[in-house]
C-alpha cells in the first residue's frame, strides 16, 4: 500500500517535469506575439457597431499574420471592452497598458469614451490611434501620443454643410440628437452653420443612448415643421426615429452624421429611411478605387454575404496604419517605453493609401486627408441604397426632396 503511494508520487513528479520541460521548449520555439490593444464597446447597445469595426480589424490582422507577421512574430489584438462608458473605457485602457503591455492602442468608438481614454494614454506615454469618434476635442488638446484615423466632426460635415449652404438653403432647422459628446459636437457645428445661413433654429431635442421611444420628440417636431432636422444618432436610434417619423406622419429632410448607415440600419428602417441624408465614407460607394474594390472583395470572402460598412473599413484602416507604424519603427527592442516612443514617431510620418483614402496626420495627430461626401438614401426598385449627391463631379445621383408619406 505504502509503496504504491510512493510510486504514484514519483509518477506525478515525473509528469510535472515532463510538462515543464516540454512546456518551455514549445514556448521557446514560438516567438511571443506583438500585442496591440483595441478598445471598443463590445457589449452594450453599440456592440453591433463595434463588431463591424472588429471584423474589419480581423481582416487586416489576418492579412499580415498570413504573411508571417512582423519579424517572425504574429500580431495579437487584445480587446478591451469600454461598454461605451468613459469610466469603463479608462479601466480597460489602463489594463491594456500596464498588464498586457501593449505597444500601441487602437480602436475606440464613441467620443465621450475616447476623450477619456486618450488622456490616459498621453499620461502613460503610450501611442493611441483612435479609429471611430468624431469629437474635435480628442486631438485638440496638444497631446503628442494621440492620433486619429477618422475625420473629426468639422471635417466630416464639411461636404454636407457646403451642400446646405449652396443648394438646400433651409429657412428652418431643428436638432434631435444623442445627449453625448458625439451629439453635442455635431449640434455645435450645425448650430453655427444655421446662424451663418440665416436658418431659424426651432428646437434642440436630446435623447439617451439606448432609448427606443422617440414619439415625444417627433410629435414636438411635427408641430414645429422644420425643413431640415439634424439627427445625430447611431444605428438603432436612427432607424427607430425613421420608423416612428412615418408612424406619426412627420416629413422633414433628415440629416445625420453618417455613422448610422449600417446593414442593421437598412434592415430595421426598411423603406422608411428613404431620403435620409448624412455624410459618409461608405466603402461600397467608392468601388472604382482599386484599394477599396480589393478590400470589399476580400471582406465578402471572409464574412460570407456581409457587405463592409463604414465601421468595418474604418477598423481595417486603423489596424493597417498601426501595423505600418510598427513596421517602420523597426524590430521591438524589448524596452517598452523606447518601442512606444518609436512607434509614436513613425506614426507622425504616416502616409498610406487605404480604404478611406490617403491617411496622413497633421501636427495634432488628426488625419486631414480623408474627405467624406454628402450621401442620401434613395430607393432603387424599392430597395434603399446610398448615393453620393454632391458635389456634381462625385455625385452618383441627383438630390431628391422628401415627399409626403402618402405620396411615397
Amino acid at each position, binding site marked *: 500500500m505504502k509503496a504504491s503511494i510512493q510510486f504514484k508520487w514519483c509518477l506525478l513528479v515525473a509528469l510535472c517535469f515532463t510538462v515543464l520541460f516540454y512546456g518551455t521548449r514549445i514556448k521557446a520555439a514560438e516567438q511571443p506575439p506583438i500585442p496591440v490593444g483595441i478598445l471598443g464597446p463590445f457589449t452594450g447597445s453599440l456592440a453591433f457597431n463595434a463588431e463591424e469595426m472588429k471584423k474589419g480589424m480581423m481582416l487586416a490582422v489576418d492579412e499580415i499574420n498570413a504573411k508571417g507577421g512582423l519579424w517572425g512574430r504574429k500580431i495579437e489584438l487584445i480587446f478591451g471592452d469600454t461598454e461605451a462608458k468613459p469610466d469603463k473605457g479608462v479601466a480597460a485602457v489602463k489594463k491594456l497598458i500596464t498588464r498586457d503591455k501593449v505597444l500601441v492602442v487602437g480602436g475606440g468608438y464613441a467620443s465621450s469614451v475616447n476623450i477619456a481614454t486618450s488622456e490616459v494614454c498621453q499620461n502613460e506615454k503610450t501611442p493611441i490611434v483612435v479609429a471611430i469618434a468624431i469629437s474635435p476635442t480628442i486631438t485638440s488638446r496638444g497631446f503628442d501620443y494621440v492620433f486619429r484615423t477618422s475625420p473629426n466632426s468639422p471635417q466630416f460635415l464639411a461636404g454636407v454643410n457646403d451642400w446646405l449652404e449652396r443648394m438646400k438653403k433651409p429657412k428652418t432647422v431643428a436638432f434631435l440628437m444623442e445627449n453625448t459628446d458625439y451629439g453635442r459636437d455635431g449640434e455645435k457645428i450645425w448650430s453655427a452653420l444655421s446662424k451663418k445661413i440665416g436658418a431659424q433654429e426651432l428646437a434642440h431635442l*436630446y*435623447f439617451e443612448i439606448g432609448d*427606443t*421611444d422617440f*414619439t*415625444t420628440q417627433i*410629435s414636438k417636431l411635427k408641430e414645429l415643421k422644420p425643413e431640415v432636422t439634424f439627427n445625430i444618432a447611431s444605428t438603432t436610434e436612427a432607424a*427607430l426615429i425613421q420608423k416612428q417619423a412615418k*408612424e406619426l*406622419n412627420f416629413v422633414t429632410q433628415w440629416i445625420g452624421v453618417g455613422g448610422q448607415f449600417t446593414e442593421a440600419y437598412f434592415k430595421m428602417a426598411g423603406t422608411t429611411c428613404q431620403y435620409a441624408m448624412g455624410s459618409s465614407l461608405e466603402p461600397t460607394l467608392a468601388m472604382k478605387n482599386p484599394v477599396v474594390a480589393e478590400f470589399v472583395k476580400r471582406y465578402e470572402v471572409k464574412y460570407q454575404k456581409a457587405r463592409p460598412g463604414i465601421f468595418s473599413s474604418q477598423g481595417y484602416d486603423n489596424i493597417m496604419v498601426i501595423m505600418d507604424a510598427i513596421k517602420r519603427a523597426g524590430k521591438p527592442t524589448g524596452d517598452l517605453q523606447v518601442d512606444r516612443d518609436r512607434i509614436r514617431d513613425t506614426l507622425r510620418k504616416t502616409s498610406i493609401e487605404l480604404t478611406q483614402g490617403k491617411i496622413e496626420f497633421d501636427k495634432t495627430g488628426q488625419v486631414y486627408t480623408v474627405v467624406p461626401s454628402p450621401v442620401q438614401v434613395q430607393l432603387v426598385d424599392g430597395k434603399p441604397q446610398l448615393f453620393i449627391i454632391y458635389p456634381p463631379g462625385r455625385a452618383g445621383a441627383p438630390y431628391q426632396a422628401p415627399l409626403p408619406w402618402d405620396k411615397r
Partner: protein
Amino acid sequence: MESLFLQQVLNGLIVGSVYSLIAIGLTMIFGVMRISNFAHGDFSMLGAYFAIYFVVLLSGWAGWVGSLVVAAVGVGLIGFFVERFLFRPLLTRWTDIDIIMLSIGLFILLENGARLFFGAAPKMIPDPFQSKTVNLLLFSTSEIRLICLLFSCIAIFLLQLFLTKTKTGVAIRATSQNRNAAALMGINISYIYSLTFVVGSALAGLGGVLYGTIFAVFPMMGAMPTLKAFAVTILGGMGNIRGAIFGGFILGVAETLGGNYVSMQYKNAIGFVIIILVLLIIPQGLFGGVEKK
C-alpha cells in the same frame, strides 16, 4: 397646441400600456413570493426573440399573433424552470438580499447569453401593417401601435378576470395577502408560487413582443423595461396589481408630457424622480402595497 397635447397623451398611453403589462408580472411575483426580480425585463427580451424566430416560420398577421402565443408559452415555461430550480430552493434558506443578488446575476447571464446566441445586431419584429399610419383629426399614430394598446388592455382585462373570478385567481390573491393563513385554508402554496411566476413571466414575454414590434429587439433591451417596471411598481404600490396597471399608464403619460413641456433630456429621469417622491411622501404607493396582512 391642443392637438400636440392629445398626441403626447396618446403616445404616453401606448408606451404606458406596455409598461403596465411588464410591471404587472413584476408586482405579482413580488406580492406573492416577495421576490424583487431584476431579470424580469430580460424575460421580455427572451419573448421578443421567440417572436423574431417565429415570424420567420409564419409571416404576416398569423405570424404576429402566433408569435404572441409562442412568446407567452415559451417564456412562461422558462419562468417555470427558473422558479422551480433557482428561486424556490433559495426562498426558504436564504435572505432577501441573496435573492436580489441571484436575480441580478440572472439578468447579467441572460443578457450576455443572448448576445452570444442571438448576436448583438438590433432587429425588429416585422409589423404586419408595415408601419401604416392612422391619421385622425387631432393626432396620428400607426395601426400597430393602436393594436398594441388594444392587446395590452385585453391581456390586462383577462388577467383581472382570472384573478377575481376564478378560484385559482382568488387563491393567488389570498397568498399575496397572507401566506400562512392561505396555507391554513388548504391552498397549495408551492403550486401558487409556481403559477404566479409562470403567469408573471408569460406577461413579460407578451410585453416583450409588443415592445419589440413598436421599438426594437436587442440583447440589452430588457434593462430599461425592468427599471421602468420597478418605477411603476413603486408608484402603484409594491405587490398591488391595480396599482401596476394604472401606474404604467401614469408613468407613460408623465414621461411624454414631461418630455414635451419640461425637458426632453430628463424624459427618462421622470420615472426615477417619481420613485423618489413616492417613497418620500407616500411610501406605500398610490394604491397602497399588498393589502393588509
